[in-house]
């Protein structure tokens, strides 16, 4: 998958972009819309609600997402460096806002959402991912002439950039996002060329941090139960253990060909809670079967491989670090989410890229795609 390095005008999202990446993302978005509809239509109809409620809203989310991605490609990412402090600051402000009583609202035990009038909700932690990645990339890519690795000071600065939003997310607490950001940060530092000691040290710090978080009670009982039920599914059979078991059964019952779109009894019976958001993959598993689910995995695989290709191709260090950040984030989030639905990973509340219902995550994901395309277009 060698990327063309021909210096030519690669303007525009649709003309000069990485078309394979675009196609894969576009297919995922379409599948997502269909799956969100499949996850909600029957249940809503059965309860005398508008069966297309989620469908319509998800289409709007996707359209806004595409617009954001396109918008992101318009600004030369190298100029973005100048705005980076603002992007970061904006992200931190959002994270502070959720903690303010009256503004933030609690869902599933975490104070992660800002409620707006009219029932709109926004999850600042999703955009904070972008802030952190861009912020880190900025610091780690600034080099003195002749230096081939970031200095310890830079690494410390980068960590500082991460630390504040991360602490705010821990305070919500949104363990899943914390884990994904941590994983992305460590990956970025490791691939920035920083000393290996940093990487090992951060890994150890991460493990100690998780331990301290649990020991200090920062991790709520709700989250602890989810972890426990992963280790021992019978520990909390009514809540998270139930959810994980149902998810596994739902996917497993899909078989090779699936029950057919809109025809999954598990999905239509809504035996898996949160199936239009975090557990959307179970809908694919049941209704589209192994063939359909594998196809989705393949699309993700293409997205990730294209992101790697973009990171590899660019000579600009900032662009490279941004791409690496995005690819790390995407990889861990895909693995965590799908792994969770199949019982490979413990349950944390992270949505599945491009498929799950929800605006905040969709916007963040699409901005990230915009960033990737931006780097691609400006690769010389």
């Amino acid at each position: 998958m060698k990327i063309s390095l021909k210096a030519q005008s690669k303007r525009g999202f649709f003309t000069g972009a990485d078309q394979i990446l675009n196609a894969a993302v576009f297919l995922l978005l379409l599948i997502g819309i269909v799956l969100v509809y499949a996850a909600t239509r029957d249940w809503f109809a059965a309860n005398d609600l508008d069966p297309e409620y989620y469908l319509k809203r998800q289409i709007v989310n996707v359209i806004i997402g595409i617009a954001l991605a396109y918008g992101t490609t318009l600004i030369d990412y190298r100029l973005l460096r100048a705005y980076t402090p603002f992007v970061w600051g904006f992200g931190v402000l959002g994270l502070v806002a959720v903690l303010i009583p009256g503004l933030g609202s609690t869902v599933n035990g975490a104070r992660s959402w800002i409620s707006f009038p009219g029932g709109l909700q926004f999850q600042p932690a999703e955009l904070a991912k972008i802030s952190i990645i861009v912020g880190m990339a900025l610091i780690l890519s600034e080099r003195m002439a002749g230096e081939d690795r970031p200095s310890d000071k830079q690494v410390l600065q980068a960590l500082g950039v991460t630390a504040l939003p991360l602490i705010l997310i821990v305070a919500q607490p949104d363990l899943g996002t914390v884990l994904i950001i941590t994983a992305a940060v460590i990956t970025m530092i490791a691939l920035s060329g920083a000393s290996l000691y940093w990487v090992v040290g951060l890994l150890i710090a991460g493990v100690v941090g998780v331990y301290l978080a649990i020991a200090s009670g920062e991790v709520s009982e709700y989250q602890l139960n989810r972890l426990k039920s992963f280790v021992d599914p019978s520990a909390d059979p009514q809540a998270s253990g139930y959810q994980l078991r149902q998810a596994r059964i739902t996917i497993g019952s899909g078989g090779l060909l699936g029950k057919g779109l809109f025809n999954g009894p598990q999905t239509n019976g809504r035996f898996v809670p949160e199936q239009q958001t975090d557990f959307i993959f179970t809908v694919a598993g049941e209704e589209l079967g192994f063939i359909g689910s594998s196809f989705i995995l393949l699309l993700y695989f293409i997205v990730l491989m294209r992101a790697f290709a973009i990171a590899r191709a660019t000579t600009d260090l900032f662009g490279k670090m941004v791409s690496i950040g995005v690819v790390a984030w995407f990889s861990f989030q895909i693995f965590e989410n799908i792994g969770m639905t199949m019982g490979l990973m413990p349950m944390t509340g992270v949505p599945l890229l491009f498929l799950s219902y929800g605006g905040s995550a969709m916007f963040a994901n699409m901005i990230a795609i915009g960033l990737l395309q931006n780097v691609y277009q400006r690769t010389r």
Partner: protein
Amino acid sequence: MRDRSTLTLLVAQVLVISLMLSLFGRLFYLQIADGPRYQEAALDIQSRDIVAPALRGLIVDNEGNALATNKAGLMVTADRSVLDKFEDKGVSVLTRVAEVLKLEYQDIYTRTRLCGELAIGERNGCWNGNRYQPIPITKDASEKQVFTILERSDLFPGIDAKPVSIRSYPSLAGQRATHVLGYLGPITEKNLNNEEGKRYYRNELIGKAGIEFLYDEQLRGIPGIKTVIVDRKEIVRQESLNRAPVPGNHLVLSLNAKLQAAVEVELKDAVFRARANGYRGDSGAAIVMDVKTGEVLAMASYPDYDLNIWENGITVNQARDLYSEKSGVPALSRAIQGEFAPASTFKVVSLSAAVDAGYSLKNTYECPAEVQIGDRTFKNFDSNAAGRISMTTAMAISCDSIWYQIAYDEWVRDGGLRPKPSLNDYFFNSAKGYGLGKKTGVDLPSELSGRLPNRQWKLDWYDRNKDFYCNYSEKAKKSQLTPYLIEIARENCLDGDKVRAGDMVNFSIGQGDTLMTPLQLAVAYSALANGGKLMVPKVAKAIVEPSGRVVKEFKPEISGRLPIKKSTLKFLQNSLRAVVTGGTATGAFSGVGVEVSGKTGTGQVFGRNLDGSSKDDTSWFASFAPSKKPEYAVVMMVSQGGFGASTSGVGVRKIYEHIFGTNGRVAIFTNGNPKKLPRIDSIKAELLP
């Protein structure tokens, strides 16, 4: 730098590829390799079996009269999964329900508790099913009550009502037949776990006792099953299977409702007669059998109770009384579970044993007032001597001392306390031949076998008790440490494993450790009447499909033959007739209007009542009639009823009057008991009040 950066990027890429591959592998495992298992699990989650119980078959008597039928009722149920969620655990809801249904709160409370939830002494009336079934509070609610509950569902969360078919025992002729019919109850976990190899569904009722229990599979039919696909809120989304219920088969009993009613009345009457004569008269049993077929035409046990309490919602007091000693344990069927010393009715066994041992029936024998055996004196029943008398007279006047001597002599011949290697054991063998110690095989559950206290039984008994008697001073209660009891304990420790002279002597007059159920005696006397065949008593006559097709007719069954010669049988028949014409039962049967042969029995009982008084004698009368061409065997037993003749003898006499229509009574059987199967009118039966 470039090389290293490229390398680390490559490493990262490989890592990501491996993550994706592990997702793919897991997906393959879940959906392909392990797919079938998950498909099954999913079906388990989504599908629900809705069970429509089949209409239970009727139980009718030998003339087609309904003994057990079904009627429409309104059932009010409580859903514990809803009630338990309230802070007060549903107390306020149940209080309101009690008010509407005009029932005691305590009864409703107990009815809606699982038995395991209550302390052991407080389980009377508890729910024997499980938490996930709707628990019936009553099946007898009025329409108005149900309306109130359904209309104000806000006041009655978790309370539901629906029409149900309820089992009804209509007592058309006044009969109850409590212990024969049995009753229904909820499925238990044990049933559901398929421990008996039968498939049950949660909201079915099954027979718990009597005929309802034994023929449950036939009566219950096959419940209708509708399998539906539900969602997480248990709302039905799809139907996948629909099997209509198959109604249960009807059961024709050999019981006759009118005769049963008469027998119940006369039994109760006998018990009260005993009480009027100063005896305690705590319980009793009476049986009428067809001597040729073994059909049980009536079987009563006193005290009994109204079976309808089970379906109408049993109260705490009713449930407690069923098993309380104070109310006489009405749950117990004395006819098959009451084991009593048969006393003189047993002498037919002794006479047969004597014949086997070579005693001539033509000789006369001395009937002294008492017999000295070892250091014990065994008195004749009334302590009078009768001189030298024939065996017939011995039976007629019920001389005991003849049997003391014969039994003792035979015991000595068998080696006494040092038994010979080859034993004759005429008495034990004769008793065995009469069915003692063996269940009759009647088609009723929980029958007891009585007790044949032979040498083996002695050995077993000794094994169980030697520790107690050999360490009596330490193990016995203070009140048991009287000189007499200590002496008995010493003897028991010494040679309690052997049949002693006293044991043998007591056995010869049906006393001591000898125990029989009234039904065993009825079978034995039927055999004496029918030429020696021990018939298996039959309560069920036939199984009939709702369409009228006969599925199965229960044929008479012989379980054995009396071990006696024709001549001995003839002699016994004559002797039993002499009991009535010129013996202990003459007064009781004078002017009965039919020739009756029988034997009185007055059994001594050791032990004490709850209030400390010593127990009164067991009153027995075992008989058959008409003497020349016997058709019916009738046995009555009244526990603590006093004399055999005056209590049970008179009771049996009245039963014969009912059967044959003598002394101004209406004959129950004008042409013998019905042989042909009756027609079953199920519509009429269902419409009974």
